[in-house]
């Protein structure tokens, strides 16, 4: 086939398309709507899951975590691991690791003069924690724990005081009817299963956008907690972040290879099965949604083409009588369908890009915030457009669309010219 015949085929198809402009416009509207719905809905769902994952991993925290093998099932101070040394420490300071922190994380009971709550007591190194998961802008009153070395701590009396403080959530403070500067008592179990308690001064209050988080976690200095529960040189977990949550396989094996045998190294996918299942379900959902919408479209597309062929039976017969091959007829119809699909795709893609840009600041769904929290999602939904999803939608529409057109095109190509010419 040479260039001019291809040009003619395209011109012919283009002009045919506009012979019945109403029909073409309705079909374009349908394809445009379908493609918009595919891309827009996918972006919203991706945005929701993305938010869930980011929050979830921030709350865990860490893309990869190291624990005592029994810790996750039984988060007790007895199931602790040694602070990283040697090869593990080298591996953690490798450029492949974005941030890491070790933490003592034990269940505790916290009491003010008036109320008592169950919480998770975190003993953290301020600098590492800020680097890994804690957002300093979430502190609403007071300050986060000071980041100090042992030497500084030994000299500075003011710092010593601050380091003995505790940072709790705003909601927890409300429930405990306490406030910044007040003292609270934390009770937990030490390594010998003796109940230990200790008074802390509240040095900071924080807010979290993760549901339930600020009532659950209280932060204090790691060394302080270690001495309180009698852990020498041991922590509950080591949390490690790489460069993204999607692919942690390299990071996982990098850390696992360097860890002693008595530590369990897991990625967030193993630690939180729900989040991991959500991520995988999303990929399935995107494909199913795109195909379902396409199928709903395909009936209309096929009908439109069948009609387009039917009303031109005489014309097609004439073309064939004049020597056009059936492959030529088929090509003409397929090009017509291709043009229709491309126009519809263009319209749908543009609309989806525009609508996603329009709600880039997020949709506020505060009205159902607690329901969203049950799914682990936030009260503001942000669309996240993955170009791979958009590409998938376009490829599905073109490929399946042309497949759908094969039948009308094949029929058009196989009319008997004589019969076709005598029609009507």
């Amino acid at each position: 086939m040479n260039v001019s015949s291809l040009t003619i085929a395209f011109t012919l198809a283009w002009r045919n398309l506009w012979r019945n402009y109403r029909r073409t416009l309705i079909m374009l509207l349908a394809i445009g709507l379908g493609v918009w719905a595919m891309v827009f809905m996918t972006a919203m769902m991706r945005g929701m899951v993305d938010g869930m994952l980011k929050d979830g991993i921030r709350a865990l925290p860490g893309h990869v975590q190291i624990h005592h093998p029994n810790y996750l099932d039984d988060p007790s101070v007895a199931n602790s691991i040694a602070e990283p040394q040697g090869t593990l420490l080298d591996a953690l300071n490798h450029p492949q690791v974005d941030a890491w922190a070790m933490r003592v994380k034990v269940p505790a009971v916290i009491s003010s003069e008036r109320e008592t709550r169950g919480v998770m007591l975190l003993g953290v190194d301020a600098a590492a924690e800020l680097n890994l998961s804690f957002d300093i802008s979430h502190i609403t009153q007071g300050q986060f724990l000071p980041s100090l070395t042992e030497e500084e701590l030994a000299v500075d009396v003011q710092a010593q005081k601050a380091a003995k403080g505790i940072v709790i959530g705003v909601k927890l403070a409300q429930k405990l009817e306490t406030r910044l500067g007040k003292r609270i008592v934390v009770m937990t179990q030490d390594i010998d299963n003796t109940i230990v308690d200790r008074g802390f001064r509240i040095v900071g209050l924080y807010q979290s956008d993760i549901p339930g988080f600020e009532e659950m976690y209280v932060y204090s200095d790691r060394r302080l907690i270690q001495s309180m529960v009698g852990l020498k040189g041991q922590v509950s977990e080591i949390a490690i972040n790489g460069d993204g949550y999607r692919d942690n396989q390299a990071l996982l094996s990098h850390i696992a290879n360097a860890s002693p045998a008595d530590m369990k190294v897991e990625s967030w996918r193993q630690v939180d099965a729900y989040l991991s299942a959500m991520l995988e379900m999303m990929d399935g959902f995107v494909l199913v949604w795109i195909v379902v919408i396409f199928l709903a479209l395909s009936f209309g597309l096929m009908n439109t083409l069948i009609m387009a062929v039917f009303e031109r039976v005489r014309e097609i017969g004439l073309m064939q009588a004049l020597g056009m091959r059936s492959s030529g007829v088929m090509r003409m119809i397929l090009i017509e369908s291709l043009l229709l699909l491309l126009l519809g795709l263009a319209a749908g893609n543009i609309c989806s890009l525009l609508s996603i840009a329009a709600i880039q600041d997020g949709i506020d769904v505060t009205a159902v915030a607690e329901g969203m929290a049950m799914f682990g999602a936030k009260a503001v939904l942000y669309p996240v457009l993955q170009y791979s999803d958009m590409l998938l939608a376009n490829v599905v529409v073109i490929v399946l669309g042309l497949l759908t057109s094969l039948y009308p095109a094949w029929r058009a190509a196989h009319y008997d010219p004589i019969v076709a010419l005598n029609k009507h």
Partner: protein
Amino acid sequence: MNIELRLAWRNLWRHKKRTWITVAAMVFSNVLLVLMLSLQLGSYQMMIDNALGLFSGQIQIQHQDYLENPKFRDDIVHPQGLVNTLKQATDLETISSRGVTFALVSSASRSYGVQVVGVEPQSEPLVSTIPGLIIEGRYLQASSSKQNEDPVAEVVLGKVLARNLKVGLGDELTLLGSGRDGSFAAGVATVVGIFNSSLPALDRTMIQLPLDYFQHLFASENRASYVVLNTPTPLELTQLNATIAELLAQQRPDESLQVRDWDALQPGIRQAIQADLSSAAFMYGVLILLVAFSVMNTQLMSVLERTREFGTMMALGLKPWRLVKLIFLETTMMATLGMLLGAILGAMLTQYYHVVGFYYPGMEEMAAKFNLPERFYPDVTWFATFIGPIFVMIASIIAAIYPALKIRKLDPISAMRAV
């Protein structure tokens, strides 16, 4: 059969293939709608049943500040009297009172901070499914009615907590907390049962004691944190709410007690349903619109190709509105066919999943999070079977307005000359 109906029916089958393809578009969407809606509605019902039945109950009577901020001191005096009055006023037996606080529980080797719930062993099984979920030992027993005898110090706890505390039946747990008056509260209770609610968050964090022992331990004699009440009709609580509110106003005017129904107790459930429904509504809306476009196109074609015919009919004296009526009759017939076939096939597919169970990868983890079974068995209901298809049918008929309007613009003379 009247002539218009017959005409419309025959017209429909002039292009068999086209009509069937349009009907197929409807059927495709309808089947999807029926199945999806059946699954959704079924799972909502289960979410409500499981989430409320497990522990929280459908209605609670609490101090007015308790919901916002469950403080131990915001409680109810003489709960038994209130329970009795409620039983008389509502004719319901499914009422029980509970005391709730936090405490540190310790076994020989472990300690955890947990929620401690004091329950009435006799009536608790009527408002919660936990007593029926005992996997080892037994549930709490009603203490002897003898006065001045120390209450029985026994405790049941969740499976995960028992494992973490490394305790079994007959082992002793030490409880440490603060009493209602701020005093130090300490006691030792024997483990008599272990329950498995299959909700790790609950199995990890809750222990239950007899209410009288609870009151004794936490210095809250004759008090309860709230009264819980179950009804056979969780979806129609308005009347009951009003009755109880009135009763409280009469009998306990000074105590600022409030009726809280499940929507207030667990707003997450209704909101989760709303959130899920609204995203589903978007998807269904798109599907329905796509079908409507398909119908619009088909009917437009069918009008345009009959221009000559319509011109002739109008020249013979047929009023345009009768042709418009004809188009709507045709569309309605097609839409009815699509609705019936879609509803029947959809119901059949739902019935299939009702028998074998519906499953998709990842559902297990979702189900675990919401305390639902791992496979889902949707019920075929009239509502779920017909609501979607009826919407599709209405949308299809609306879509015929544009093609039908074309007829009104027809001029008989030029129409008859049209090719």
